[in-house]
Every structure is written in C-alpha cells, then in structure tokens.
C-alpha cells in the first residue's frame, strides 16, 4: 500500500509541474514583451507614444495613437456587422431550426471557425477590397471597412456559438410562461429569451472583440496600412498588429524601432487579457444566475 501511495504522489507532483506550464508561459510572454518594449520609454515618453500620431522611425518619432484608433475602429465595425447576424443565427439554431437545417448550419459554422486567417486574407484582398471600392466609389478599396468585413466573418462563429449556448441555457420555464401568456414565437424570442441570455451574449461579444483586436494576417492584407489617423470606416488605416507584422523584419534588432514594435504588441496584449477576464467573469455570473 505504501508503495502505491508514493507512486500516486510522484505522478501528482509531475502533473502539477505540467499544469503550471501555462502560467509560466504567460509570465514569460509578459516578461519578454516588456523586456523588448520598455527600453522605448528611455527615448520616448509614454504619452508621446500613446497620444502622438506621427510614426517616423527614421526620425525617432513613435506616436502610435493612429494605430490604436484604427484597431478600435476596425473592431467596432466588425462587431457592428457581425452581432446582428450572429445573434439571429444563434436564435435560429437554438429555437426554430428543424433538424436538417441544424445539420447543415452547425458544421458550416465550425468550418468557418477553422479556416486559416491567411486564407480569409487572400480572399478579402481580391474580393472584398474590390467590392468596397466599387460599392462606395472610393479611390482605394483597402479600407478599415474592408478589414471590418473580413473580421466580421471571422468572429461570427464565436458570437454564434456562445450566444446559442446562452439562449439554450435559459430555463424552459421562462419560455413556457411566455407562451402561456399568449406570446408568439417572435415575442418570446425577443422579449424573453434574448434578454434572459443577455449577459452570456455580451460575454461572447467581448471575446469576439478580443479576437478582432488581436487578428493580424487577414487585416494586414486589406487595410491599406496608412500611418495617418483614419477619419472614418472608408479610410485606409494601419492597426497595431499590422504595423508589427510589416516592420519587424526590417527593423534593426534591439534598436528603438524594435522596442517600439514590442510596445505596439503590448497594447493589444493588455486589452485582450482584460477582455478575456471580463468575458469569463460574465460567463460564470450568467451560469450562476440560472443554476
């Protein structure tokens, strides 16, 4: 008996080492990104970096506000486009879809989630960019809107699956009560089910926002990459992530430019961590409500 007990402790200890790996990696990422980025602030002040809007590495100008604004605009546009469609589709799947329709739509959404971002990028580079240019008659289709459209497609699966889960977790009693009061299907859906599932849906939207801010490949190919403060969705822009991708290869390693690119990475990193925590808080709260 003694021996078995020991074996169990050994395995337990080994697994414990395994299980702190995720934490160790997370801390290492923070350490290395900070180590790569912080030297920038010996040369440029934090406010010049966050509020400045001139990015000219050759002249030591590292203002990144236009990248931050572009990233937020792109994300905002993507959410605006995908939320109505995503929630509708989630309601469809959770409430009214017959079996055969579910068997088509569910795998389609899974596949949509599995397509690599670079393929979305190449698709958008040719199809969506020309679509935007022709539709809005702008000088170039490489705009924030084009990036928003491709991101909207990419985050749809997240919004749909999380919204569907939250709608399905609304207790049956709510629905039956609504029908008993003589409400139609639609009234039940938009007055009872969707509001009851609200916090869960919001958690899904926040998660999707995080994904959108962090996405690189699909965005860099279609957004035009202009280092100017964008004035609207039909302007080209450059996001934090696309600036890193474009300039990292050519930057002189460990130079101020290199440091600045790490700082550009720090911004979405912090934003996304914050959103992830917020989203999981909401999800737990939502579950607790119906439990």
């Amino acid at each position, binding site marked *: 008996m003694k021996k078995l007990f020991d074996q169990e402790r050994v395995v337990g200890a080994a697994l414990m080492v395994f299980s702190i790996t995720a934490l160790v990696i997370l801390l290492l990422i923070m350490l290395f990104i900070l180590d790569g980025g912080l030297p920038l602030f010996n040369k440029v002040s934090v406010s010049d970096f966050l509020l400045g809007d001139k990015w000219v590495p050759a002249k030591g100008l590292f203002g990144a506000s236009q990248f931050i604004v572009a990233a937020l605009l792109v994300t905002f546009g993507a959410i605006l486009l995908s939320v109505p469609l995503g929630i509708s589709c989630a309601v469809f799947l959770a409430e009214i879809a017959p079996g055969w329709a579910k068997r088509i739509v569910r795998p389609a959404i899974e596949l949509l989630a599995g397509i690599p971002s670079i393929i979305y990028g190449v698709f958008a580079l040719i199809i969506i960019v020309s679509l935007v240019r022709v539709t809005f008659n702008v000088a170039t289709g490489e705009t924030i809107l084009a990036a928003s459209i491709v991101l909207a497609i990419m985050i749809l699966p997240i919004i749909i699956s999380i919204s569907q889960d939250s709608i399905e977790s609304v207790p049956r009693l709510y629905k039956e009560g609504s029908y008993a009061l003589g409400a139609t299907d639609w009234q039940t859906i938009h007055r009872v089910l969707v509001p009851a599932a609200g916090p869960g849906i919001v958690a899904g939207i926040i998660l999707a926002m995080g994904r959108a801010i962090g996405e690189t490949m699909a965005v860099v190919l279609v957004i035009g990459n*202009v280092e*100017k403060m964008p004035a609207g969705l039909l302007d080209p822009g450059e996001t934090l992530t696309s600036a890193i991708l474009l300039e990292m290869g*050519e930057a002189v390693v460990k130079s101020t430019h290199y440091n600045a690119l790490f700082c550009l990475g720090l911004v979405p990193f912090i934003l996304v961590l914050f959103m992830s925590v917020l989203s999981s808080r909401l999800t737990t709260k939502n579950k607790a409500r119906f439990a």
Partner: protein
Amino acid sequence: MKAVSVFLVLGLVLFSGCAGKDSADLVIAGSTTVQPIVTRAAEVYSKEHPDTSIGVEGGGSGTGIRMVGEGSVAVGASSRELSSEEKRAHPDLTVNTIAIDCIAIVVNPSNNLSNSSLSLAEVRDIFSGKITNYKELGGPDRRIVLVEREDGSGTRSMFESMVMNNTDVSDAALQKPASGAIRFTVSGNENAIGYLGIGYLDGSIKPIAVNGVLPSEESVRAKSYPLSRDLYLITKGKPSGLAGEFIDYLLSDAGQDIVKEEGFIRLE
C-alpha cells in the same frame, strides 16, 4: 500505456533530430528583395554540387545583418548599406556587392501618366502629398493613391534618399510589405502610383520615365536613369569557405545570368 510509448517514440525522433546543428551547410538570411536571386542561385548551385545544401531565409535586411553579425548565419542579404548603428555593433562585417537594382515609378497601364515623363521634383511632390490629384499633372480629375514600402524596407530607404531629399513621404500612402504587393495593388487600381524594383516590372503595370528616361538595363548602366542601387551579401570578415564559393559563383557569368533572369541588373 500506449500513449506513453507514443511519447517515448516522439522524444526519440526529436533527439535524433538534434544530431546536426543546422540542416543546410550554408544559410543566407535577410532582404526579401535579394531573396529571388539567392534562392535561384542556391537552387542551381546545389544541383551542380549535390553534396552541399544551401538554405535561404527571409526576415528582412535588418534581421539578416543582425544574424550574420552574431554569427548565427554565414551570409546576410541586404538591399541597403549598413547603418552606423550596425557598423558600430559589428565592425568586422564585409559588404559584397552582387547585383544592381533599379527603382521604377509605376502606375496602372490605363493611367495615361505612363506616357509622360516626370521630373524627380514632380515625383517628390506626388509622394510628399503636395500633388494629390492627377489633374494637377494634366490628367483626369482623380485622386492619387500612393503606394509605398513599409518602414525599415531597403527599397523604401533607397527611394527616400534618392527621391525624397529630406521631405517625408505623405502619411496617406498605403504601405506594402513587398514589391509584389505594390505591383498587385497598382495593377488593380487605376488611381495608384507606387515604386518597386525593376525585377518586378511586368505587363500588369507601367513604368514612368523619370527626367525623360525609362528604367532599363541600358539606362541604368549609362547612369542616365537616376534611381539605382546595389544589392549586397554580407559576410563576417572576407568571405571564405562555402560562403566564399557561393559568392564567387554569384559573381561569375553563370551567377550574373541568374541576376539578369530574375530581373535585376548585372554587375559590369
């Protein structure tokens, strides 16, 4: 238990891989502009010398210079000269010129600007954002869409030093990570104007004459076309061993033929 044995096998395979430090006998990393020449030359060279293998990595001029400086690769490819910062960090680097590149100012074939000639000052005014509409150049009333390379690009720094003359390129310019991407954008947008290496010229875009001269091998050699630069392979000290042989090969007639086939200009 099965799972455990699978992982053991995985581990063994991983370790067997550790035997050799690097797969290729010679690794060349750096500039994406130089990459087509080096890749093609490596392909042909390895065919002639079946026992050697040459690996080519991108990463950009900055990465290439840093890696050769630190000794992690034998040869770095660069489309720009060493910065003073880089010279200070790695004083023992040798710069070997292997080809000449020339920058063409290009527009969409449907853009009738392609039939006219611009002065360097006009090119500068276009790219600095002083001229924003084709009607200012006698063309139709259409907004000019500028297309340039990303910060740190060798092609861009060459364009800036040769054309821009201390004025900044307008921050309204679209930035592309590669010459091919510039060609793609310009060929798909009749409002676009961009610049790229002469090796990327094809039927989908048209070069503009600068000071009345179109970019070509002859005009670059005659020094009548103003925008040309050298391309480099960088080594630590004098090139020796396989690196030296490969650079010699590139400088030979056969090597320079590859330079020409890839659309660049031979050294004379």
